[in-house]
């Protein structure tokens, strides 16, 4: 029996997670314990398994937070100190470094090997692609080794993400890289936004977290409406493209009943109709870009050419006042020129500035808006009201309307300006 075997903690409960067909994380941690050449890595894995088994037996967690960062930063690391470190000393400090992945989560195997080599040298050898925050999670570093690991990966192009009350690591879908539904350059939006706020990512000084997520179309694969303070979703303004030959082929293959049951009647605004010659009629003015019919018939239907994004603000989960969806503040923003991208970043800057100044401690953007009302927020960031921002107008009669005439005049002025821009071909 080797010295390693002598020191091994028994793991009767965790052992039961090595059975079954799905890949087992327990077997992975055991490989580090049993097969890794470094005694440091092996010892850490052994004590980590010991503590986890202890959690399984007692049904309690044993990690505590603290304060750890790297030189010049205030965040990006989730500190973990064990409460049962005397029993499991080699994993006593087991911090996670949150590292921002490349936009779209693309890697070469060389890049992954480089990260694996650095991590094995300095950390536990356990890593997750990716955490729910969108970060690469390097799980298990000591306070001392965080700096060395960071220095090494920072030299070849990786940087820490957000942790704490700050701008968080952003997320974007695969989008333009591979998906025909994409209506935007998610990569560029993602990096233009979050890399404009590196200071706010690395030095937590906001009332609470602030998340950007970018989805290339309303399928919203990044869950941005439900999970992001600032959701950017690709969309289009002109007519969707219909390849009628492909429609006919689909109807011929699947049958009219299938098409009526699965496409025509599923349209949320009744904007589709199947014509007698098996072609599709689309009421584009009433299409809300829900994506369902495009998802079912991707060969026949595709987004239009006049593409841009919608921006929704304020999504978050339960704590403190309840779940919130993001809601529309910009129905459409074209993103073609550098000036267009600057406008997008400017809206984000205005939003974060207003949030920083007006939110209460530990209050998310959506909760702040719930407290002060959407109109006050819009005035704060300099965005005009728009009927696309609401599901329906106010039902409560408790409102003062003293300045109705002035507000109505503003609406007609904006309409007139919009019409002028539209005729000049410059509407945005």
């Amino acid at each position, binding site marked *: 029996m080797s010295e390693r075997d002598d020191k091994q903690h028994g793991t009767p409960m965790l052992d039961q997670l090595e059975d079954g067909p799905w890949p087992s994380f327990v077997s992975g941690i055991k490989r580090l314990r049993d097969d890794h050449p470094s005694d440091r890595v092996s010892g850490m894995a052994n004590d980590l398994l010991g503590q986890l088994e202890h959690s399984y037996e007692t049904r309690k967690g044993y990690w505590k937070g603290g304060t750890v960062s790297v030189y010049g930063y205030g965040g990006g690391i989730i500190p973990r100190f064990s409460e049962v470190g005397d029993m499991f000393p080699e994993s006593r400090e087991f911090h996670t470094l949150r590292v921002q992945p490349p936009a779209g989560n693309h890697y070469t195997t060389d890049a992954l090997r480089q990260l694996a080599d650095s991590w094995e040298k300095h950390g536990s050898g*356990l890593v997750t692609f990716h955490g729910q925050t969108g970060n690469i999670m390097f799980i298990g570093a000591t306070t001392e080794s965080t700096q060395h690991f960071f220095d090494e990966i920072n030299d070849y192009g990786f940087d820490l993400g957000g942790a704490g009350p700050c701008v968080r690591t952003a997320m974007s879908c695969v989008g333009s890289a591979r998906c025909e539904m994409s209506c935007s350059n998610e990569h560029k939006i993602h990096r233009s936004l979050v*890399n404009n706020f590196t200071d706010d990512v690395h030095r937590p000084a906001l009332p609470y977290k602030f998340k950007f997520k970018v989805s290339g179309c309303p399928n919203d694969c990044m869950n941005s409406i439900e999970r992001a303070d600032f959701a950017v979703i690709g969309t289009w303004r002109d007519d969707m493209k219909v390849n009628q030959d492909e429609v006919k082929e689909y109807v011929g293959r699947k049958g009219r009943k299938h098409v009526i049951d699965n496409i025509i009647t599923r349209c949320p605004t009744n904007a589709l109709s199947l014509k007698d010659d098996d072609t599709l009629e689309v009421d584009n003015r009433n299409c809300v870009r829900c994506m369902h019919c495009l998802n079912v018939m991707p060969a026949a239907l595709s987004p239009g050419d006049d593409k841009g994004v919608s921006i929704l603000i304020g999504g978050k989960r339960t704590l403190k006042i309840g779940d919130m969806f993001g809601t529309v503040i910009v129905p459409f923003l074209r993103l073609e020129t550098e000036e267009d991208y600057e406008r997008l970043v400017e809206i984000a800057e205005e939003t974060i500035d207003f949030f920083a100044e007006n939110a209460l401690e530990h209050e998310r953007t959506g909760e702040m808006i719930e407290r002060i009302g959407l109109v006050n927020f819009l005035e704060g960031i300099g965005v005009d009201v728009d009927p696309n921002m609401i599901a329906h107008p106010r039902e409560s009669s408790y409102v003062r309307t003293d300045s109705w005439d002035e507000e109505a005049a503003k609406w007609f002025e904006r309409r007139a300006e919009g019409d002028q821009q539209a005729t000049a071909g410059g509407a945005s």
Partner: protein
Amino acid sequence: MSETAKKPKKQMRPAIESGCPDGLQYMHPVMVRNFGQWVNHTHPRPGVLCHIAESGEAIWTVRAGTQRILDVFTLRKLCDIGDEFADGHVRFTIRSNIEYMVDAESKVEPLINALTEAGFMVGGTQNSVAMIAHTQGWLHCDIPGTDASGVVKAMMDELHEEFTSAEMPNRVHITTSCCQINCGGQGDIAINVQHTKPPKINHDLVANVCERPSVVARCPVAAIRPAMVNGKPSLEVDEKKCICCGACYPPCPPMQINDPEHSKLAIWVGGNHSNARSKPSFQKLVAAGIPNNPPRWPEATAIVKRILRCYKEDARDWERMNDWIDRIGWPRFFEITELPFTRFHIDNWRGSRKSLNSSSYIRF
């Protein structure tokens, strides 16, 4: 002043604040060449997607589930497969699946075989049960009521056939969360910790560890107030008001909310982030009081499987969980899943009237 005191401190390396790296440098060349120019996709088999670009070029994607918590050996194994059987370019989905992209259909089968031989499952595309989104749990979190990786491993062992086939009415996203912060997020089915007893306070520690006003402010129902206990400044909880949400525990660890017996699991259904067919929806409570039972959580898995079976049998093509329940109604959902409907299903939080039936629409 002595010479040693004057000696400059070792210069720390200043960080390069490079932020989010450019993904294009790592992207498969076919994807770079056809960036933003894709026109169609097909689903040749579960776990495989073929995307076609305007140029006529195509890229095949093979998706495999992972254990999410990867050791470097497993990560290198995945890289080896990528080098030998794919083109050396990979990406990860937000549900921690690895995707290999290849430029020829002939590379797909050998790649799938290599992944399967190495113990990974190919699937998770389109109308399958996708990999369960989850968080850290007992392995790393400071406030977890349960484990995450273990729950997911145990459930995927039972659900893997729905991952490797694509026979559900539409895709099914399952999530797990170890507290009400719900890092796992909204899901067609969400398995979340639900505490059932107020926090147990260690009054000896509160004054030193907790910033009491911010703990008081954190409570959604104003049930926490400052108090002197045994001559020490501490906090007390009005246990009649307490909703056992655990919001006070992260800012004040001496207010222990996790309990081996009374921290239960609850199951929620119908969360859907997509705008397709209807606006995004939040998940709704359907079952609670489920034991937190490591190492394999059989009670929770049994309910998940039951809900999945009913959905698979009864939902129409393209209906997500929420679409299905919207069509058949909640009474029928509880009837066919044989889950009890209780007083706890009726919301009493602010705005809850909107969740009541204010019509005569009743299915008989």
